């Protein structure tokens, strides 16, 4: 049973990876990466890493991929080609480097003479659940507390950095977007008395007399009407 699940998940992971690297449309590449991540979570489950698999699905395939989809939709998936496509020589060199890397990694991992490489791994202790949230939480808050705190600090720095990088700057034809009006301004009917109207008059009737004269005449008229 474990073998069948391993081959399904492994083939899914490799197929998703090939899809990410080869699909033209970045939107489909993101979807292929989601598929890859889900297959990888199945592999993690087969390796008894339950908490990491759950975090992979929730954090990675959920939140991070939604971020990707938003940016792809914002930038606009298809990028117009500004240069001719890669020549065959570049393509060949890239595949050659990747193939050599695979050979090297295979030698480094499979040919390393690790005694456990043909086994299913160490026998697991029954009592503290291996890979359970209890074990992960205890390790994170005792032995790896410094790494945990540094990771939270790194996340804070990355959030601040992303806001600084992606904020709106002046220049390059964006000046029209910069001017913003408060919501109050749109909801208020004209002529209901702001400081701007007191100085400039209403936008649709031209101001003939200076504002203070106009106002004093109006006051005088009102006083006469009362009397």
């Amino acid at each position, binding site marked *: 049973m474990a*073998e069948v699940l*391993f081959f399904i998940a492994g083939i899914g*992971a*490799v197929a998703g*990876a*090939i899809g*990410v*690297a080869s699909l033209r449309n*970045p939107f489909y*590449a993101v979807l292929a*990466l989601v598929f*890859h991540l889900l297959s*990888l979570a199945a592999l*993690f489950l087969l*390796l*008894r*890493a339950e908490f*990491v698999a759950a*975090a992979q699905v929730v*954090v*990675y395939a959920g939140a991070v991929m939604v971020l*990707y989809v938003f*940016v792809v939709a914002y930038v606009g998936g298809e*990028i117009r080609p*500004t*240069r001719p496509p*890669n020549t065959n020589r570049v393509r060949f060199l890239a*595949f050659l*480097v*990747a193939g050599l*890397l*695979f050979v090297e990694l295979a030698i480094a*991992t*499979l040919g390393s003479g690790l005694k*456990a*490489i043909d*086994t*299913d*791994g*160490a026998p697991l202790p029954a009592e503290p659940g*291996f890979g359970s949230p209890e*074990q992960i939480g205890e*390790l*994170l808050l005792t*032995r*790896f507390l410094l*790494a945990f705190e540094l*990771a939270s600090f*790194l*996340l804070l720095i*990355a959030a601040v*950095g*992303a*806001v600084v*990088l*992606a904020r*709106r700057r002046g220049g*390059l*034809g*964006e000046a029209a977007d910069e001017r913003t009006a408060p919501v109050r301004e749109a909801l208020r009917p004209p002529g209901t008395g702001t400081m701007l109207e007191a100085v400039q008059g209403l936008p649709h009737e031209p101001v003939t007399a200076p504002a203070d004269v106009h106002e004093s005449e109006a006051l005088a008229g009102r006083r006469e009407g009362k009397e």
Partner: protein
Amino acid sequence: MAIGWYLAVSSLVFCIGAAGVLLRRNPLVVLLCIELMLNAANLALITFSRMHGDGDGQIFAIIVMVVAACEVCIGLGLVVALYRRRLPIDVDELRELHG
């Protein structure tokens, strides 16, 4: 399943990601391929954690996931900044630091 099979899948995914980084010129897809390489490393870490039967490798994988989230954050911020400045979204065109 034997541990070696997981390591084989991991190195295969890592090489596909490396080929994607070398071949693709859209920075979004380059970021996705870096994600692939990080995930391959995560799979290897969790495989070794299972091999030794203790949880240290899983902690390492979680920290790698944090670093990957930060990298996505900064990378997508850079892509959005490029788009705002009307620069070409092509890693071969953006070679001012290249010398």
